[in-house]
């Protein structure tokens, strides 16, 4: 939880060709393909192998035998497992995630509808975490052992230890119910719903584009609390990592040299040390962004936020396996993709990592 290694650490291993950047790109692509294959294999096992009877989940336990047999064949369950898996891969490649029982829509269409809400929430939370966490981490490293350092440590411990769904509830109780500072659950008030034409899917951007500032304000008021709650963990993580990266850099000899030469402390911190930290931070930020996409599940449930997390949990209770697995795959692909992207970016920016 507090380790600095990227979730998919390709660095240092899997450099099959030793061709510098090109080689590492090939390595990343190989790992990516393998990881996706693994992801689909596991979801396949979860969806088709583990449930006691996938046919019963579709036809119900009172279906006639011939209906049962028909669905059994339709699902391809009479074929060997590897054939089923290949068929499953083929469907996935075409973007076919099956039909949701709950909404009677293709799962893909549902996910496209719910995804922007999650993306908006996670993006704002990541942005908040970065804008606050990075300066806090730098400050803690510079003032090591003094009160700003202890404060950052405390914020970190809080962020790592608090159950986010509980924090969301308490936040709603205080800031919505008691103080009335923010709007309640949901993305927007009911009477504003559906006025703005969805262009990007982000209500904030859409409202701003349409010049509907009243709606924009309302959306912000709905977004502030869930985004802050979600940002707690990000803030803790980013501040802690920034601190430790900065401490690493500040103890290097080039910093000593710069100081001896009489370079001002501000210049040493921001132009020398921080610039080197920046590269490492890319990975960390990518990592948190990816984890927020999945971490928003609980926050979305508390705030009735119509995102992908809520879609998955709601489907879960309806035994809507297609929707659950579809959501898992989409989040998984985003998660893996963002991780790889930040890993790749890291190699491009930092020549030492090649």
């Amino acid at each position, binding site marked *: 939880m507090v380790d600095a290694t990227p979730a998919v650490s390709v660095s240092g291993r899997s450099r099959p060709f030793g061709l510098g950047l090109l080689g590492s790109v090939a390595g990343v692509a190989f790992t990516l393909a393998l990881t996706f294959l693994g992801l689909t294999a596991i979801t396949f096992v979860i969806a088709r192998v583990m449930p006691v009877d996938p046919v019963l989940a579709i036809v119900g336990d009172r279906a006639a035998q011939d209906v049962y047999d028909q669905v059994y064949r339709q699902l391809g369950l009479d074929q060997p497992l590897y054939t089923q898996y290949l068929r499953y891969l083929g469907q996935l490649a075409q973007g076919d995630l099956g039909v949701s029982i709950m909404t009677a829509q293709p799962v893909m269409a549902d996910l496209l509808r719910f995804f922007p809400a999650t993306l908006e929430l996670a993006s704002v939370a990541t942005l908040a975490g970065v804008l606050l966490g990075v300066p806090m981490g730098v400050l803690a490293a510079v003032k090591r052992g003094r009160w700003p350092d202890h404060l950052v440590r405390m914020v970190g411990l809080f962020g790592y230890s*608090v159950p986010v769904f509980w924090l969301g509830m308490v936040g709603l109780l205080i800031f919505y119910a008691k103080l009335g500072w923010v709007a309640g659950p949901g993305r927007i008030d009911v009477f504003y719903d559906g006025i703005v034409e969805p262009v990007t899917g982000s209500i904030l951007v859409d409202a701003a584009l349409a010049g509907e500032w009243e709606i924009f304000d309302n959306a912000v008021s709905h977004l502030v609390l869930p985004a802050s709650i979600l940002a707690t963990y990000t803030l803790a993580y980013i501040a802690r990592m920034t601190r430790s990266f900065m401490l690493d850099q500040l103890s290097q000899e080039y910093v000593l040299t710069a100081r001896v030469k009489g370079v001002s402390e501000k210049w040493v911190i921001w132009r020398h040390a921080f610039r080197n930290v920046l590269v490492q931070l890319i990975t960390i930020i990518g990592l948190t962004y990816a984890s927020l996409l999945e971490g928003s599940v609980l926050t979305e449930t508390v705030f009735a936020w119509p995102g992908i997390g809520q879609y998955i949990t709601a489907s879960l209770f309806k035994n809507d396996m297609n929707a659950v697995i579809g959501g898992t795959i989409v989040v998984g692909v985003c998660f893996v993709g963002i991780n790889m992207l930040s890993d790749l970016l890291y190699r491009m920016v930092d020549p030492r990592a090649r």
Partner: protein
Amino acid sequence: MSELVETRHGVRAWLLASSPRSALQARCQRFYISWLAFFANPVAMLGLVIVAGLVVVALLAPWIASSNGVDPDLDARLQPFSSEHWFGTDQLGRDIFDRIVWGSRITLYIVGLVAVIVVPVGLLIGTVAGFVGGMVDNVLMRITDIFLAFPRLILALAFVAALGPGLENAVLAIALTTWSPYARIARAEALTIRNSEFIMAARVQGAGTVGILYRHVMPLCLSSVIVRLTLDMAGIILTAAGLGFLGLGAQPPTPEWGAMISNGRQFLLDQWWVPTVPGIAIFVVSLGFNLLGDGLRDVLDPKSER
């Protein structure tokens, strides 16, 4: 062994002697010195006290709680804090303090079970990969990487969806998504040990690969695995509570803390303590594990980040 029965001063001197005369003495010395460093760290001690408190409460639950925390008492619904009900009562009139006390057993059960599954699996895969090397290493680490790359909570959700809600399935789902970092740690340790002289010596004496792995490699990997486990405990508790909150973990009327928050949600506005108190319990216990883990890391692994 006669040194042990000397005076207190003598024991201390024995523990701090510059050249230990027996393996036992050396082992005791290492433990004692680590303990001194740990003891000097008040934050880590706080963590230890919290975790020890959790264990004590779980062990003594039948004596601490005045009820079994499950039977409803509809005459005492939703009461605020009082001397009779320290943390008030929930919608079925059950004493929240008692439910928290009984819930500590479930929390310990979850983290214990996850640890029992995850540590051996991670150790086995990691040490075999690191020690044997070659093709075996490649295949095992690819699998580990794949699991490492997955979104944990979502995957746990999918597992529980397939297996059906319940405490054991939640534990299984968490374990399935948690073992991979342990394999990586164990592999890294095994790689550094692999070419040591004492391994060579054991081999020359005729020890087989399995024996060397079990007797020499695994024990040496254990300390970093344990540090990581302690740091992970908070995350495991939070994930389990999250699954409980979503209704996928322990089922009612089990006093699992996450499920208690979920059940009390509708009373948030008027009887705020019903969902709030279990959340504080989760927070305190996770904090305890985090503090303890930080302290252990400082003592056992001085090279790591400060």
